[in-house]
């Protein structure tokens, strides 16, 4: 090998690191990976400020396990439920892979929610990061959409009833709900279209927006910690240290998901029967449940619209320079009310039975 071809300054034989270092240098020369070593403030490496990276790690796990599941899942309505059963009973490691996918989806929702709360509490959405906050809200909406379509795909009674609500909301939207209609395509069942959304449309949009999200973080830098007033004096670390710490947290996350996939593997409900409503949705959708009881199915639509309208409005409502949550009492109170309402509604839904629920 002609090491003499290397540019000046490149590691030479005998220098610290040896062959491994030379290999890294060779890769860097071609891919420019050392550009990732730009400095970021030290607080970026704390767990709270790594939640976004962990959300992305969950997405990666979902893509990998999802690719495996697509080899065995059949979205044709007549056999969809059976194909999930076959994954559980006839595919080697199928229950485990499905379990990882099932728990990683919930982990992504929780981590994205916690990341959103962290950004909110620290006021990280303030100028010039308003645009990236909106990208993050869009990512959260896409995550909810992916979760919802994922619950439909197993095509059991719960999925069937959730889709029934979806179709009703589609009708409530009038012309705007055209896609959520069984009449939209004459030749493709709606389950198949939701499958396409779940495995192609939503992941493509998610990955594209994650790239935009990361690019804007790079553009604006990691936001200042509200409890560290002297930002320039804060020690800096290479961004690669942030990545490796996310990798460490990600390994632990994968381990937790693996344990859950084994000790709490997801089952599948009975094949759907029309005209009854006896199931409850997954926990993150439960807060709609009492609202539907009180105000009808259109309340689900309005609840979602109001929640995301509030999230979109956040950077426009709070434009002051204050970052600490105690010095932003109205925003903090608003967040407590919204999150508290969602928790209370979820508890109410947990206490009631699915059969008593109006449908």
């Amino acid at each position, binding site marked *: 090998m002609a090491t003499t071809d290397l540019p000046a300054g490149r590691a030479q034989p005998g220098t610290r690191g040896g062959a491994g270092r030379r290999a890294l240098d060779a890769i860097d020369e071609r891919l420019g990976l050392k550009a990732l070593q730009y400095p970021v403030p*030290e*607080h970026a*490496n*704390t*767990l*709270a400020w790594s939640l976004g990276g962990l959300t992305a790690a969950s997405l990666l796990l979902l893509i990998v396990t999802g690719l495996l599941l697509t080899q065995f899942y059949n979205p*044709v*309505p*007549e*056999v969809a*439920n*059976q194909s999930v*059963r076959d994954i*559980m009973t006839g595919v080697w*490691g199928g*229950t*485990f892979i499905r*379990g990882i996918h099932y728990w990683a989806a919930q982990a992504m929702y929780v981590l994205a929610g916690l990341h959103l709360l962290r950004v909110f509490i620290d006021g990280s959405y303030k100028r010039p990061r308003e645009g990236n906050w909106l990208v993050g809200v869009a990512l959260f909406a896409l995550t909810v959409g992916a979760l919802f379509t994922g619950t439909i795909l197993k*095509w*059991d009674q719960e999925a*069937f009833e959730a*889709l*029934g609500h979806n179709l009703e909301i589609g009708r409530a939207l009038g012309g705007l709900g055209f896609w959520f209609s*069984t009449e939209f395509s004459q*030749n493709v*069942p*709606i389950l198949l279209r939701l499958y396409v959304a779940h495995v192609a449309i939503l992941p493509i949009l998610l990955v594209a927006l994650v790239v935009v999200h990361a690019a804007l973080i790079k553009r604006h830098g990691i936001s200042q910690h509200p*409890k560290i007033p002297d930002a320039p004096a804060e*020690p800096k*670390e290479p961004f690669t*240290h942030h990545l*490796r*710490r996310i990798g*460490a*947290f*990600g*390994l*632990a*996350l*994968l*381990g*937790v998901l*693996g*344990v859950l*996939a*084994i*000790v709490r*593997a*997801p*089952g*599948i409900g*009975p*094949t*759907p*029967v*029309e*005209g*009854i409503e*006896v199931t409850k949705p997954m926990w993150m959708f439960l807060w709609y449940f009492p609202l539907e009881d009180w105000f009808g199915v259109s309340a689900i639509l309005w609840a979602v619209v109001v929640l995301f309208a509030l999230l979109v409005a956040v950077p426009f409502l709070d434009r002051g320079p204050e970052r600490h949550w105690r010095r932003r009492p109205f925003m903090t109170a608003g967040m407590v009310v919204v999150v508290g309402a969602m928790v209370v509604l979820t508890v109410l839904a947990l206490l009631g039975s699915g*059969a008593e629920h109006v449908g």
Partner: protein
Amino acid sequence: MPSRSAALLEAALALGSEHELEPVLRRIVESATAVVGARYGALGRYDEHGEIQAFVHVGVDAGTVARIGRLPRGRGLLGEVIVARPHLGGNDIPPIRETSNLGSGALATGEQTGTNVAIDPLEPERGLDGGAWVMLAVSLGLILLGAWLALRWQPLRHREA
């Protein structure tokens, strides 16, 4: 399998020995659930508009039937399955497999006139076999490794608290 053959033979005989529709459908469902080992089963017969005219079910006790309420009429997504079926093609209609199937075709005189519904939730095995123990050990190892690395790589002046 002799028991399946016997159940299928019984179903065939039922068609010839009954003269009312509902008893015939019930015998078919009973035989079908016996063949596949399902706890519950149902069969709907629908008209040319896709509306279910007869819906018989077995294996569900009276109290549950009362709680469920009215029977399916084919106006919802089950109806969609019926309507969507022509797109599959007559020979693509899947057979009943395992213990669960929605909307497998019931054929009479070469035309599909009904829809089978056999119900049984499937829970994964709760007992851990050898492979599961290995994966559990690997997962616990990943948690420990990840936690150790995260602690090792935490910021010098960490502020996790």
